[in-house]
């Protein structure tokens, strides 16, 4: 007796797979994760209570902001078949550039609005520049962007850490590896409800709510979006139609890098008010954003919703750590299983697996 496994491409994706695949993978990942938590001695309901609680918390919004910004950017790049996994480094580039300018170039009497605009532009450009570097390497020399963007993450990490441990280390920080607090005219205002301060900074929140719609418009209504989608779906047809593929690669790397850069600006100016160790600035958002992009089915508005959901998961992870003494890493299990089930369900919606027992 032997078991035969084969697959067959479905003539069309399963109906409603656009909704069923993300929803199904969320449900699967939550159930599997809960089982794992129960096995490590947590009450089965705790996970769901914490999760429900996180759905309406400012902490979730705080984490959702960088995830949405980077996730939307990655969705644009992935739509063009450009596999940018360097959002982590691009967040750091934005944070680094904004911090440097905030510390050394913004005069203390500059109008806060002007300062914010200048710093967002600087952060965007830094992230975009880093993205463009990988984009040019791909378009000109056919360097695989997965490798180049991934390696740039480590380079940026080392640069940031070199600066906060070395030349930029703050004089009023008791020797901690971080810069001095920025002058308060560059602080991005945080949301205050009644007398409760939240870690949600208003301008970056506003940007992260507008950008998905803007990018949706770009992708589905403009000629650039058309080019991005043609290049992503069929590079031969793009060439055939006279679309400059190199330009499209560069454009998507600029957008995805730039949006991650803005996320980095929001982190340092809106939350920490100083540049801290790289591992804490980007905090894995750049990698988690990959899941955001896929969970949102590479649709910018989908990424907005997915970004919020993953924000909830991240926030729930921290709460879980506090109340059940489970390490924060447990939440990475959830997102990991989420990505796995997402890919598997997506596969099943496109292919039909056939299992047969032959005697």
């Amino acid at each position, binding site marked *: 007796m032997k078991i035969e496994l084969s697959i067959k491409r479905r003539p069309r994706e399963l109906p409603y797979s656009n909704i069923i695949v993300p929803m199904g993978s969320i449900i699967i990942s939550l159930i599997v994760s809960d089982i794992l938590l129960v096995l490590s001695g947590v009450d089965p309901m705790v996970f769901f209570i914490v999760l429900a609680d996180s759905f309406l918390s400012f902490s979730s919004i705080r984490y959702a902001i960088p995830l949405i910004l980077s996730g939307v950017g990655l969705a644009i790049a992935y739509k063009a078949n450009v596999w940018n996994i360097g959002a982590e480094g691009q967040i750091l580039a934005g944070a680094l550039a904004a911090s440097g300018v905030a510390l050394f170039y913004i005069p203390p009497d500059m109008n806060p609005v002007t300062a914010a605009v200048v710093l967002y532009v600087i952060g965007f450009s830094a992230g975009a520049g880093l993205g463009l570097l990988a984009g040019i390497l791909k378009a000109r020399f056919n360097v695989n962007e997965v490798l180049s963007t991934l390696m740039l993450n480590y380079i940026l990490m080392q640069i940031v850490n070199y600066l906060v441990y070395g030349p930029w280390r703050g004089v009023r920080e008791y020797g901690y590896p971080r810069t001095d607090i920025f002058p308060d005219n560059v602080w991005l205002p945080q949301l205050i409800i009644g007398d409760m301060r939240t870690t949600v900074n208003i301008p970056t929140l506003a940007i992260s709510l507008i950008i998905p719609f803007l990018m949706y418009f770009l992708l589905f209504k403009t*000629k650039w979006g058309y080019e991005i989608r043609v290049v992503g779906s069929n590079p031969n047809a793009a060439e055939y*139609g006279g679309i400059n593929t190199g330009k499209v690669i560069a454009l998507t790397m600029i957008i995805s890098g730039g949006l991650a850069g803005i996320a980095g600006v929001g982190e340092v100016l809106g939350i920490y008010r100083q540049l801290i160790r790289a591992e804490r600035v980007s905090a894995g958002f750049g990698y988690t954003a990959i899941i955001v992009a896929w969970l949102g089915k590479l649709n910018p508005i989908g990424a907005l919703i997915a970004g919020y959901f993953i924000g909830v998961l991240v926030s729930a992870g921290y709460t879980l750590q506090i109340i059940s003494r489970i390490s924060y890493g447990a939440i990475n299990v959830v997102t990991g299983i989420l990505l796995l089930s997402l890919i598997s369900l997506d596969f099943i919606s496109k292919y039909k697996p*056939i299992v047969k027992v032959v005697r």
Partner: protein
Amino acid sequence: MSRGTTPQNLFFNQEYREALAYMKDISKSFYGNKALNNVSFNLRKGEIHVILGENGAGKTTLVKILAGLYSPDSGEIFLEGKKVNIESTRDAIKYGIAMVNQYPQLVEELTVADNISLSLNNVGLFNQTSKIGDKIIEISERYGFRIQPWKEIMNLSFSERQRVEIIKAIMLDAKVIIMDEPTTLLTTKERRLIYQFMKKAKADERGIILITHKLSEALEIADRITVLRKGKVVDTVDVSEATYEKLMEMMFGRTVAIHEKILKRGLGETTSRRVLEISDLSVKDNYGRLAVNGISFHIHKGEIYGIAGIAGNGQIELVEALYGLRKPVKGDIKIMGKNYWEYSKKEIKRIIGYIPDKIQDAVVLDMPIYENSILKLYDTSEYIRNRFIIDYDRAIEYSSQLIKNYYIAAEGPDVYAGYLSGGNLQKLVLAREISIDPPLIVAVNPTRALDHFSTEFVYETLYKFKETGKAVLLISEDKDEVLRLSDRISVMYEGRLIEMGRREDVDVDLMEEYMIRGQNED
């Protein structure tokens, strides 16, 4: 009358006991469209059964179900009276059903023997290609083909590749051999060999299903003919009862008279103005070999220039260089009297309407028809509003026109290109390219995936296009197509062009010799 003796049941019982393969009441829908609607079909031992039908009639769908490539929505399949469940190609092979693809799917880098042993499931862990080699020679001699088992696939001609697939079917000891339009790309001699094979296989008690759109072929080789129209069986007839006219009427539901119309028209007037002028052009292929070797020709306004040749003689490299997808190593191209480099890359795409050999390279399958219809014009003032916003309403309107005027079988402009059949994709690209109204159309095998009617339609369209004073470069593996449409003809062989002269002067036998050997044997 009791149930068992109704004429219908009697027919059913008898047919399915006799049948080698019996497909009963097969239905299959794609996205709500019924591709097959209660189709029953039976194949006897030792017969050649032709399936005839227009494009989209469902003939390929039907055999793909038998070959395990599609699963039917409803219906049953019996093999020698036993009900079977065919869910994959592996099942089909197990039951002795093999399909010879129109475009053989083989691994280029491996030898003939390797390719065949790959598909023999029971070869075990160790490579037994040496044993297979002897078997291949034995089979190829028995069926009258010559094939060397140790040659790599990439060095084989199209018809040799097809023979590999046929030998594979025999090695699998297939009782049912499905042949999907096997003779489309063959010369008369090669076609004879295929017919000879089918007759021998028939004598071995195998059953052959032959899909074709050539009525003459059906009448020549078939024992029985089943005609499909719009997913239904019109009838199954014995070849003795069939005539050309009768089959035409069965296929189309009406008699057709446009068949010979084009030939009777006059030849294109030649004017002095040259639309395309190529001199001493050399182009390399992907492996760095010289695929086009110093060729020169020109095309006038109002002229169709036909280049006939078997695939792989440099035609693709030539048109890719012409369309700006490949850099020539030497030579000049002039279009409308201007040097090639005076045009931008985008301009070239718009002054040359290009229907490529691989039609999938000219469309985006996961985009709707209306987005595909603007692939070349999406950033021109016609479709751009406010500097960068695409006017999709206009694209939808435009593509609805294309669908209507070019008889593209699609429910509407928002159907995804991926859901169109090969023939309809071909028509979509033709429609788009012609409606841009370029001075030059380059068409490579423009009717390969098309049925009789659509082929005539494409010929008409290209002809009308030329008559408006435009130029057409027709590149085709089908010499009849070249002979029928072109004003001047040449043959491409191993990167060189052999001028055959004006159509009325062409010696057809000589042309065929040149296509196969590049020279005259006598």
